[in-house]
């Protein structure tokens, strides 16, 4: 069916349809050792799995080219075994052309990571875009890559595209890595690019990398974002872009989910257990499963001592359901309420201690504020235990 359609289109003399996948920021071999070893291994494996997943997406959409806009590797200093693994994985997807652009994490430098790659042998279906020179993608499109050759090139590396000569009938597709205005990593101010490069250089599409969320800068200029999130995001990672060009017209950009793990960052203001329950639906990712979801939950507001103790139980519960649940409760305070204390069975000197600690914990100028909050929790916990064991 699909083949027939393709044949139909191929039969048309004009315009030709060119499809490709735009991806970036794979950050292969990122170690994630901040997490427990098991999870770190899974997360690293998920990064390598990007290749297989993108290949599947490409085939499903009839794309033959996968353009990767930089930061394929997490670092220039990367173990050879990791590179071998990545190259082997790319070679596996031998029916697809992988066009890899050096980014700021893996710049094209002497003896850098790409030298290692070429030393190990570039698979025939892989092209390392080491030249800022036009490269024909079949007969219908020409790729204008802007490889990053240094962590601080001190110039707009896409500028050459303006004057690059290409056949009139071929679509011009730019590929670059860096920052446009507010997009791109903060430390890459040196990789600033003109926001209207696509217009200036007559590009049908400018495929960008560096910003980890998928983002449309303009109709013809996009950040694909990383296909596999690598941190708790404040943007929208986890996509690949399937781009269609008809002749020399951009026909469409499709955001295709590509992530294995879902990373979520939530910030909530809570004042009761009910507020906590209200968070629960948000913890369920739309497309993913709880077991592959990592959540960082920043809590603000205040809880009663009893509710705060219940929060620990809630965290235990949800930590078991989610792959990771990190709760940042530094801004969560415990309300000092005698009734609250009494309901926990605090009386006499224990009540006095609780009031003292509570006062400390709610005094912003007290250096032991955080210790006091925890001490109060422990006091409540120990009291409950002692009472339950008392005759």
């Amino acid at each position, binding site marked *: 069916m699909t083949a027939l359609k393709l044949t139909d289109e191929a039969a048309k003399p004009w315009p030709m349809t060119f499809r490709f996948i735009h991806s970036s920021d794979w950050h292969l*071999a*990122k*170690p*994630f*050792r*901040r*997490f*427990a070893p098991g999870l*770190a291994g899974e997360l690293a494996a998920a990064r390598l799995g990007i290749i297989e997943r993108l290949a599947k997406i490409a085939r499903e959409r009839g794309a033959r080219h996968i353009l990767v806009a930089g930061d394929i590797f*997490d*670092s*220039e*200093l*990367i*173990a*050879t*075994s*990791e590179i071998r693994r990545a190259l082997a994985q790319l070679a596996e997807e031998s029916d697809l052309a992988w066009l890899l652009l050096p980014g700021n994490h893996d710049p094209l*430098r*002497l*003896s*850098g990571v790409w030298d*290692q790659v070429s*030393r190990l042998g570039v698979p025939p279906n892989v092209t390392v875009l080491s030249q800022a020179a036009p490269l024909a993608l079949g007969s219908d499109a020409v790729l204008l890559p802007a490889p990053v050759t240094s962590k601080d090139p001190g110039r707009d590396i896409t500028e050459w595209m303006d004057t690059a000569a290409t056949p009139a009938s071929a679509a011009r597709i730019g590929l670059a890595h860096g920052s446009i205005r507010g997009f791109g990593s903060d430390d890459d101010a040196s990789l600033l690019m003109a926001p209207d490069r696509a217009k200036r250089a007559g590009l049908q599409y400018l495929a960008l990398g560096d910003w980890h969320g998928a983002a449309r800068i303009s109709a013809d200029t996009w950040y694909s974002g990383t296909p596999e999130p690598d941190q708790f995001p404040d943007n929208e990672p986890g996509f690949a872009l399937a781009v269609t060009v008809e002749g020399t017209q951009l026909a469409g950009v499709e955001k295709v989910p590509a992530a294995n793990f879902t990373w979520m960052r939530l910030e909530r203001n809570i004042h009761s257990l009910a507020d906590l329950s209200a968070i629960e639906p948000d913890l369920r990712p739309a497309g993913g499963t709880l077991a592959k979801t990592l959540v960082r939950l920043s809590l603000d507001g205040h809880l009663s001592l009893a509710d705060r103790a219940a929060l620990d139980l809630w965290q235990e519960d949800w930590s078991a359901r989610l792959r990771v649940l990190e709760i940042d409760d530094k801004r969560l305070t415990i309300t000092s309420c005698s009734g609250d204390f009494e309901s926990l*069975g605090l*009386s*006499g*000197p*224990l*009540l*006095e*201690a609780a009031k*003292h*600690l509570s006062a*400390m914990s709610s005094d912003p100028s007290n250096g*032991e504020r*955080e*210790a*006091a*909050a*925890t*001490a109060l*929790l*422990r*006091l409540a916990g*120990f*009291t409950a*235990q*002692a*009472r339950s*064991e*008392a*005759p």
Partner: protein
Amino acid sequence: MKILAVRLAAFRRFDEPAAIEDFGDGVNLLCGPNEMGKSTMFQALEAAFLVRHKVSGGVLDGMRPYAGGEPLVEVDFEAQGGRWRIRKQFGRGSSAVLSDLISGGAVARNAEAEERLSALTGASGDLPGSLGLVWVRQQRTLSPPDPDFDHVSGKTKARGEGAILRDVISREIETAAFDATFEGVRDRTKRALDLLATPSRNAAKKDGPLYNAVKLREELKARLDETRAIAQAAEQRLNQIAAMTARLGELEAQAQSQVTGEGVAELEARRAAAVANRTERDLARQAMLRHEAEHAAAAGALAARNKSAEELAAKQSAFAAASEIAQRIETLTAEIAPDLAAARVIDRLGELERQRALAEAELSGHAAHVEIALEEGGRGRVEVGGEALNESRSFQVVEPVEIRIAGVGTIGISTAHAVRGAELRRASEAAGAEIAQVLAEIGASSIEEARGRSATAAKKQVELSGARAKLSGLAPRGLDTLADDIAQLAASIAASDVGAVSEMDVERLRSAAVDARLTFNALSARAMSDDDFRKLDAEIAAARNAEASRKSEIERLRQELAHTKGAQQALDEEGRASELAAHQGEFERADAEMQRWRHEAEALRLLERTLGEIEARAKAAYSAPISRRVARHLERVFGVSELTFRDDFAIDALRRGERPETVSVLSDGTREQLSLLVRLAFAEILAESGRGVPLVVDDPLAYSDDVRLAAVCGELAAATSVPQIIVLTCREKAFEILTGRRLKVTNWRPER
């Protein structure tokens, strides 16, 4: 609680059963000599209430009498509104029976009996509790009470004493209850913190989670730093490779295309040109010198010839002059020759003339003067000496003369000196003759002529000398020589005239020399100065060096680059730098873990501190009622004074007047009195709380003087709130002042 009776059998000193049956309220005094068994009574009381009936070992042996047997103790007592009997059989067949004396039946046996007993006495479990506070053994009376302190082990040991005090005092003061829950919380806090921190709480407990987390973090930090250093070195190496590659390319490009003005070849070409230029200049100098020499030679030759011609001319004119002079000399010489004779004789003539004159003069002296004046017609007619006079005449007559006057006669005249005169006449005539002869010789007619001719000769002689000098100047070697010279000179001039330079030749040569000099000057101006030459040489040397160093740098860079690339490749293979992110992550994880534990430890420390502070504050409040009660006794015994307590109810210090005194520095007597009074206060507090127990003291106040003893006894007697005070003493007399019941030991026949 009150003791009603104590009975014992086979107990230490008492082989035989004995009893004290007459205990009453208030002060009970058992007096008796040493070894009477007072302390045994005390121990029997302790055994009944505090020793488990199943006790064995040293404690049991300690109770057994020397004679052997199984100790039996029976105590009747009043407690909690009832009257009870505890009977404990120790050793073989041990048992404990608690009986209700009112209903008359056993209410509990053995372990249960002991538990009930504890409950009745207000103790908890088998801890001595309140009894320990107020039952003072013989050897302890000196020591101040130190609740929950085990004197045997020297350590604090929970004996329920402090707890009892706190419990009873808490009824009196407004403070929270340190109940089991509090103890449980404190204990849990302590246990939780013990896992993390050392007992001093100043450091992490070895091998505890915090300690391990800190250690792990440190290890990972060290590893991270190491990896970071490696990664930085790798990064640096990458930069080095780039820099070296760029530099190498630069150098190789330089080596390939000599940049103008920098290469050795160019400099050497410049040097060669300069050398050629200098050579040309040197040749020009030689040409110039040659031309100038030629010119000088020609000019010289011309001048010399001109000079010879002038010389010839001069000589010729000299010759002419000389010849003339020679002629003149000849003439003069000839002219002068005759006159020369006159000159030669002139002096002789003069002499002769003088001689004649002298003779004449002398003659005339002798002469007579004769004057003949002639008259006109006389002329010729007078003759003198034969000679006619033609004119008048005067003359001298020295010799006879005759004057004849023709016609008249002759007159002779003579003088007296005619002989001399004749001599003189002859002399004069000889001189005249010689003069005449000389004159004849020279052909002169007169002396005057001779004289004239002599003067002419002298004049011509001078002229001749001048001419001769002139001639000698003109032709010093003679005219002939001069003539020869002239001839030679003329000949040589004639000879040199063959091929001689002309004025034109000299002019041509001069012009050539000037041209040569101009050429030389021009070349000199173009030629490089020595300084510049040296500079150029230095430049060449520098350029050579630069080239050589470039070569060596290229070589070195190539090697270094190969080496660095190799090192980088090796590092890549090793992958150590690639572990940076991993190590960073692991470090962060360990750091977070350590922070978590540190936070936990801080929180627990804070909790422990908070609980401790609250407890300490409460404890401080607790000691106040004791201080207050003790103060009343102290005031009466010691005067105004204050006793302070630590929060474990141990005595802190006694303040009498200004300075506080610690107990250890007090005298034995004072210490003993204080101890007893504090125990009395304890007993009062217990009693006032409704949990009164007897104050039992074995052999107290042994070191007290009579006054203090009396005062303390007064306090005991006045302590009516205490249900019972039992004093065991061997000093009957001393305690006579103590009012109260006197106990008696009686025989006992225990029921079997």
